[in-house]
């Protein structure tokens, strides 16, 4: 109690220092005056009386020190003093301080921005949905570790068979053409289960959401929910929007409600505009068999734990349910188990790419910040050596080591915290800019990140850590100073500090590692893009048609395809034309179907599967996939030939052990087919995938209700074919729309888009880093050179040419830089060979990056060196 009161009094006194000093001064004056009078009365002379009074009082200054120590909190007062002093010091070096603060701010700002993204994914993965981080992904998982998604029937079964999860919801992403024929616009929506909105706990902005019974039976209830943005832009936010018709994929749907403003769907970071009941899938997607075919795994499932249930329990129930499904439907579900995963840790899809990209980015950015700290420490050391005299005076006057350290520390902390606050501002600006920035590409992407208290605290913490890191070296350096030496040596000849050079080397080495990582990343992305898909996408136009609604039978489907192909092939610019049910490198993938093949006995349980695509004759010509053996399919009109199949090399290798395939029979659910040819392997699902077995069936044998038209142009300008193709289809059937028209390259771009986001960031990051390293070198060299102005003046006066001086300065600094580069190079090489490229060295990157880095480093040395070498020797010699 007593000590608390004493503490509070002291705290208060610290604030009222001036008044207290005045009081003490007055008391002392009074005391001495009274003592002097006393002495006078005793008969001493006035001068002597005062002298004796002073003697009796004792050492005034020592007493004042005791008094001050007793009065206030020395620690706080010293700190305030240090901060005032730090402020003054920083104001005396505005240029240097600006460089430090700005580079720190960039480092901290970028890190904070990335953290806010990661934080969004972890804690607020679904904007507009509260408690979304509690959702779990319910992911079927194949034996080989793939995550194929769930089929609709599987979902219906899991809904009741995993009681630990409440409200499992299903959704899939679909492209929509909205509007009348001829003026449609393309947008993305989600097909959702009936409990979607209620399970997410959303409240409609107006109207209502989809009711569970509206997603029960296929083809019922043509209703749709629109996004808030869509409502605002298309209906100007009018309440009458509810009840209006919207034409989606050639169907009229009735708007029943508007989603809340922030809600953007359940596949981050994609932004969806429309939500329709999953049961509309066949109507909206050209008769897709999504709802009845168990091998079409188009849906993603999420669910939340029931109160009291654990993830382990849900996992166990899920595994049991999947095992049961595998027993009941072996052809679709054999070997498929399941995994319950936290929402942020999505094993597939855009979220997965985002989180791993961000994690790498955060690591790289922290390295970058470390490099900035290196810069700053270097600058501080350079400055610190010119302050040796100042520090020596302080030590000589009785300042303790800790006072010196705390002085240096407070200066650097002030700089660091200024940098952190600016960095926080950059992060706020950056996340806002990212929110409003339109993303390029065919997918609408929206990041709803914001900087909150947590991320700001992170920025401050980073700043403080940086401050500590870059004060350590100068503080130790100055605190070890011997005042005698410090006072004796002139400020014009700073000792060649090895620490400074080592730091510069370390920093260059760090820059090297990050630059190489960035270059490798970019290269790997570009090479994925340049990987030969083993078919030729250039010059191919894709377009889809859909006969559902015309209720065609097999014969009319075949007939339609044959007539369509005939007309298309007669176009002058068409070199080859074909129709297929699936397109490689599609986001949804190509289905793999079970089969048995003559001459193979499967030993283990389950069924052989192969990618299967149904194509017309001419397909291999359009795709430029060579047939290694045998022939193309029989013509569409041929009624004599038996059912045919063409397999690929991998199929022959894996299922026939390389034996002759021609003539063997394949049995599938659709019938029996004779193998008539072997096609070369090509890419089906993704660039860089391992070779997959594939079977092609003929459109003649298995006509389909819808098809993807493939047109190879003669002229190389495939987009020019669009209108001609439309005209051909209109001639055949005036009411039939040609939809999803795109070049094959555009089709691939869509697939690559999500991989491109981190690559783009590295493109921005690389130069930024190079710039920071250059600033660092420039600052250190120019500072060191400025301190040696007199020495250089002497040399110039003695006849050295400015060229020689420049060369010498560059050589001195380049030595360390080269060392740093070399070590960083080796480090990057080890990491790359061990972890990234697995033994392959990317020579252009490992030669090019160091060349660029050394070039920039030389330039950064040269600029300050040339400046000082141009100085007039007389001016240089007079320089303090």
């Amino acid at each position, binding site marked *: 109690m007593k000590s608390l009161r004493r503490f509070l009094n002291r705290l208060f006194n610290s604030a009222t220092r001036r008044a207290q000093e005045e009081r003490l001064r007055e008391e002392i004056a009074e005391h001495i005056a009274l003592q002097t009078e006393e002495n006078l009365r005793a008969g001493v002379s006035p001068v002597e009386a005062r002298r004796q009074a002073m003697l009796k*009082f004792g050492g005034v200054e020592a007493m004042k020190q005791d008094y001050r120590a007793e009065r206030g909190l020395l620690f706080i007062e010293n700190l305030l003093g240090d901060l005032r002093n730090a402020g003054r010091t920083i104001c005396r070096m505005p240029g240097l301080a600006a460089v430090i603060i700005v580079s720190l701010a960039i480092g901290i700002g970028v890190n904070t921005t990335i953290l806010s993204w990661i934080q969004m994914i972890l804690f607020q993965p679904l904007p507009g949905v509260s408690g979304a981080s509690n959702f779990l992904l319910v992911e079927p998982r194949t034996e080989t570790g793939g995550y194929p998604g769930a089929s609709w029937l599987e979902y219906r079964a899991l809904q009741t068979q995993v009681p630990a999860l409440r409200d499992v919801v299903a959704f899939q992403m679909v492209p929509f053409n909205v509007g009348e024929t001829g003026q449609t616009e393309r947008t993305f929506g989600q097909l959702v289960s009936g409990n979607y909105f209620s399970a997410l706990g959303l409240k409609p902005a107006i109207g209502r959401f989809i009711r569970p019974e509206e997603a029960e039976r296929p083809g019922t209830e043509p209703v749709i929910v629109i996004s808030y943005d869509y409502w605002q832009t298309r209906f100007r936010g009018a309440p009458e929007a509810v009840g209006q018709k919207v034409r989606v994929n050639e169907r009229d749907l009735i708007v029943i409600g508007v989603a809340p403003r922030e809600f953007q769907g359940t596949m981050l970071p994609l932004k969806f505009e429309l939500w329709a009941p999953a049961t509309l899938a066949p109507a909206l997607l050209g008769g897709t068999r999504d709802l009845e075919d168990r091998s079409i795994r188009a849906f993603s499932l999420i669910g939340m734990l029931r109160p009291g249930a654990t993830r382990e329990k849900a996992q166990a129930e899920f595994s049991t349910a999947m095992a049961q499904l595998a027993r009941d439907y072996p052809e679709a579900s054999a070997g498929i188990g399941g995994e319950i995963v936290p929402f942020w840790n999505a094993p597939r899809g855009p979220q997965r790419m985002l989180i791993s990209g961000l994690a790498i980015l955060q690591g790289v950015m922290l390295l970058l910040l470390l490099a900035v700290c290196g810069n700053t420490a270097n600058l501080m050391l350079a400055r610190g050596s010119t302050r040796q005299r100042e520090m020596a005076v302080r030590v000589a006057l009785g300042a303790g080591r800790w006072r010196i350290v705390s002085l240096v520390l407070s200066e650097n902390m002030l700089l660091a915290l200024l940098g952190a606050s600016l960095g926080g501002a950059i992060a706020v600006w950056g996340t806002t800019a990212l929110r409003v920035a339109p993303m390029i590409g065919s997918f609408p992407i929206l990041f709803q990140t914001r900087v909150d208290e947590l991320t700001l605290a992170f920025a401050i913490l980073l700043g403080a850590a940086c401050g500590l890191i870059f004060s350590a070296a100068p503080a130790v350096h100055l605190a070890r100073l011997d005042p005698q030496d410090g006072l004796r040596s002139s400020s014009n000849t700073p000792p060649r500090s090895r620490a400074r050079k080592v730091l510069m080397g370390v920093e260059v080495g760090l820059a090297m590692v990050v630059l190489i990582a960035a270059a490798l990343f970019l290269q790997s992305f570009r090479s994925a893009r340049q990987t030969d898909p083993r078919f030729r996408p250039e010059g191919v136009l894709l377009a889809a048609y859909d006969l559902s609604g015309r209720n065609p039978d097999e014969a009319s489907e075949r007939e339609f395809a044959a007539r369509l192909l005939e007309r298309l092939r007669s176009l002058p610019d068409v070199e080859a034309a074909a129709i297929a049910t699936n397109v490689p490198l599609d986001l949804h993938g190509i289905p793999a179907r079970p089969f048995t093949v003559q001459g193979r006995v499967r030993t283990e349980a389950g069924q052989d599967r192969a990618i299967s695509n149904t194509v017309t004759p001419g397909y291999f010509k359009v795709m430029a996939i060579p047939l290694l053996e045998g022939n193309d399919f029989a013509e569409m009109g041929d009624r004599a030939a038996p059912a045919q199949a063409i397999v690929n090399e991998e199929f022959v290798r894996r299922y026939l052990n390389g034996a002759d395939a021609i003539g063997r029979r394949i049995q599938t659910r659709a019938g029996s087919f004779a193998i008539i040819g072997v096609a070369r392997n090509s890419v089906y699902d993704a660039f860089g995938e391992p070779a997959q077995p594939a079977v092609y069936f003929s459109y003649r044998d298995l006509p389909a209700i819808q098809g993807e038209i493939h047109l190879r142009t003669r002229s190389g300008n495939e987009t020019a074919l669009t209108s001609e193709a439309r005209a051909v289809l209109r001639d055949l059937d005036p009411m039939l729309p040609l939809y999803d028209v795109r070049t094959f390259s555009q089709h691939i771009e869509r697939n690559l888009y999500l991989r491109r986001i981190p690559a783009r960031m590295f493109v921005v990051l690389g130069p930024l880093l190079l710039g920071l390293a250059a600033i660092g070198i420039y600052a250190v060299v120019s500072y060191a050179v400025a301190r040696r102005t007199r020495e250089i003046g002497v040399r110039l006066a003695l006849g050295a040419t400015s060229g020689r001086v420049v060369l010498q300065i560059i050589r001195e600094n380049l030595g360390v830089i080269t060392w740093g580069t070399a070590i960083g190079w080796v480090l990057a090489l080890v990491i790359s060979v061990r972890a990234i490229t697995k033994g392959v060295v990317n020579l252009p990157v490992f030669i090019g990056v160091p060349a660029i880095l050394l070039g920039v480093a030389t330039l950064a040395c040269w600029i300050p060196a040339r400046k000082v070498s141009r100085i007039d020797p007389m001016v240089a010699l007079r320089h303090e």
Partner: protein
Amino acid sequence: MKQKTDVLQGTLALMVLKTLDVLGPLHGYGIARRIEQISGDLLAVNQGTLYPVLLKLEQEGAIASEWGASENNRRARFYRLTREGRKQLQVETQDWEQTAAIIGRFFDVKTEDL
């Protein structure tokens, strides 16, 4: 001499409290004079050391101070004992007497008593 001062520093606070208890409100010089008179030459030098002690006591709440007029009508700071200070004095007086008694008994003990 040095040891003497150390003892003095420890007991100075007690002396100040006792002085204020006996004489009522006093200014710094008055307290110094009184202690000097009673203790002889102990506080003849370094009267200044009194002031940090006064400050400490004031911050602990044992004494309070205010400006007033000294005997020759000059502005001076007068210290007086607070209720808490009186209590503290009582406790410390007891402590001191107890300590002194124990020490005294130790000095009285002779070898043959053991």
